């Protein structure tokens, strides 16, 4: 065995982790670029400034949900409640603002807390009630779906009393025409997610739990607590999604939500994250979300009929994951 000195490896550390990330997402990055070129050639205004901004804005909600769900997926779990939790958090902050007279900043924080709380309950179900994640979060999906309707009285809750609420998402960032705040919010939160994932214990333990939960527990890690934290984090991200969603619509729509979770999971998985847990990449998730929204947008711009769009997204989903698996097999 040849002993390498330590220091060069240390210096290479950053490069390596970056390189690993890039190789991790190489295939989907390729797919993404090809897809964009394809649409651009057929419809040059696909890459018009306005349309790019439209795509980015359309990525925001799904991107935030996908980021949250990614952490759960790293642990080998799944969260199918994020869509409904998102809605529930926005409905609750709407109620807080209009009925309980919360100030705007408080309202926003309250919405986040509601999301995190739902996530914590999911985590509680998974750890203390021994529910499989799919079941715990399916129950949460049904519960928040019902509660959103009950709490709102089955009516949209409007944020019109808080002028400026709509600007949170759709105002122009630094006054740049067409550059929505929501996009910056997504970018900032994605960077935070990246840091949480790669530099903190929560990311490390998410992967460790996904890789071998029992071994992690026997290493003295309080797996249950970390899992609750991770599900709460996922709920918190759903709360972020709820903020962007309700701000874009200037209202909380209680009936919305179901269906968004699948898209979020699809984004995470297209982004190269294995549902078995134990490995993953935040950058991948974001690209996955971008692929979905730019594909949908492209199909719309090409006036592909709505019914075919769903089928095409399905095929792309399968192929993207397939190519990614192939790359890994050959690596």
């Amino acid at each position, binding site marked *: 065995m040849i002993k390498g000195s330590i220091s060069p490896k240390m210096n290479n550390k950053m490069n390596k982790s970056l390189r690993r990330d890039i190789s991790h997402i190489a295939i989907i990055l390729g797919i993404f670029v090809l897809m964009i070129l394809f649409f651009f050639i057929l419809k040059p*205004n*696909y890459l*018009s400034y*306005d*349309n790019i901004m*439209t795509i980015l*804005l*359309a990525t925001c*909600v799904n991107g935030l949900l996908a980021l949250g769900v990614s952490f759960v997926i790293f642990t080998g779990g799944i969260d199918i409640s994020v869509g409904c939790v998102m809605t529930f958090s926005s409905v609750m902050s709407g109620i807080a603002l209009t009925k309980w007279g919360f100030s705007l900043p408080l309202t926003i924080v309250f919405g986040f807390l509601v999301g995190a709380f739902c996530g914590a309950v999911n985590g509680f179900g998974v750890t203390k009630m021994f529910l499989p994640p799919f079941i715990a979060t399916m129950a949460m999906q049904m519960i928040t779906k019902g509660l959103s*309707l009950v709490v709102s009285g*089955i009516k*949209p809750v*409007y944020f*019109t009393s808080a002028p400026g609420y*709509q600007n949170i998402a*759709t105002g122009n960032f630094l006054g740049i025409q067409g550059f929505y705040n929501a996009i910056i919010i997504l970018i900032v939160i994605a960077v935070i997610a990246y840091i949480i994932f790669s530099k903190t214990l929560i990311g490390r333990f998410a992967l460790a739990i996904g890789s071998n939960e029992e071994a992690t527990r026997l290493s003295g890690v309080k797996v249950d607590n970390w899992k609750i934290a991770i599900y709460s984090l996922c709920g918190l991200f759903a709360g972020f999604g709820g903020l962007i*969603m309700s701000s*874009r*619509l*200037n*209202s909380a*729509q*209680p*009936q*919305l939500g*179901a*269906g968004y979770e699948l898209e979020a999971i699809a984004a995470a998985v297209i982004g190269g994250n294995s549902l078995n847990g134990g490995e993953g990449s935040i950058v991948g998730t974001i690209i996955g979300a971008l692929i979905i929204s730019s594909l*949908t*947008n492209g199909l*719309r*711009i090409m*006036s592909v*009929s*709505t*019914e075919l769009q*769903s089928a095409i997204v399905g095929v792309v989903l399968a192929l993207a994951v397939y190519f990614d698996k192939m790359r890994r097999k050959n690596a």
Partner: protein
Amino acid sequence: QPASKDTQDDKPYIAMIALGYGHQFWQAVRQGAEEAAKDYNVRITFEGPEEETMVDKQVDMLKTALANNPAAVALAAIDVESVTGILKDAKAKGIRIVGFDSGTGEEAEAHCSTDNLQAAALAAENAARILNGKGKIGIVGHSQTVIDAVQRVDGFVEKIEKEYPDIEIVDIQYGDGDHLKSAEVTKGMLQAHPDIDLIYTSNEGACVGAYNGLKEAGKIKEVLLVGFDSSAAMKEGVRSGEIVGAITQDPVGMGYKTVEAAVKLLNGEKVDSFIDTGCYWYDASNMDEDHIKPLLYD
């Protein structure tokens, strides 16, 4: 003409975005719109979110449609509030805005729709007439949130409560417009209230579902059924008298008139700001008459 033309096509382009997509109602609107497009030589696209609840998807669709530089946009907004800003910008660019069905609020230069409250009241009137002003009614709705659906229930309830004191509405349940679920809902309702005389349903899925539920419960014609919208199954039920009657709203006409209004706006002609496409009661006795027959669709 300030509106820009699509580069690949000389025909003016009109983007239509509906509330939903899968229900026959929207397909009938689409059919009318396509007929008008042919007649007036314009190009249209017709789309809608897969669920009639996905507001943000509809907003994305609208934005994407605008990226294609349409001459006009026709929209049935799920939530008017959510599109007002975008429509304002579009209008400023010279794009003409037409509303249909649920409409688009202030921004529309013309609005083609039926009044769902009024249509539901018409259903209530007929139901009351059939019950001779006395009896118990159950309602199977298709959504608690979509505006049309809510109005179709509210209009019915209001009318009955106001004008027919001897008629009681004993239960309102929702079946998502899913035929099977609506059948189960109906049967559950009959179990809970065996004395129901008539069931009112708010769309095609609810109606056909309830129709099957009644059949399965062996209560067809014993419990009367009033429907909404149209489809082959409903037409057959109405013809046989197993559905006593239903309301149709002429969605084909709505689609046609929406495109027509947009074309007229593009040509600088004057257009009425509100175009009522009406609502009609149909039953076995009148469904083959000339003014009803074309309004029924499969």
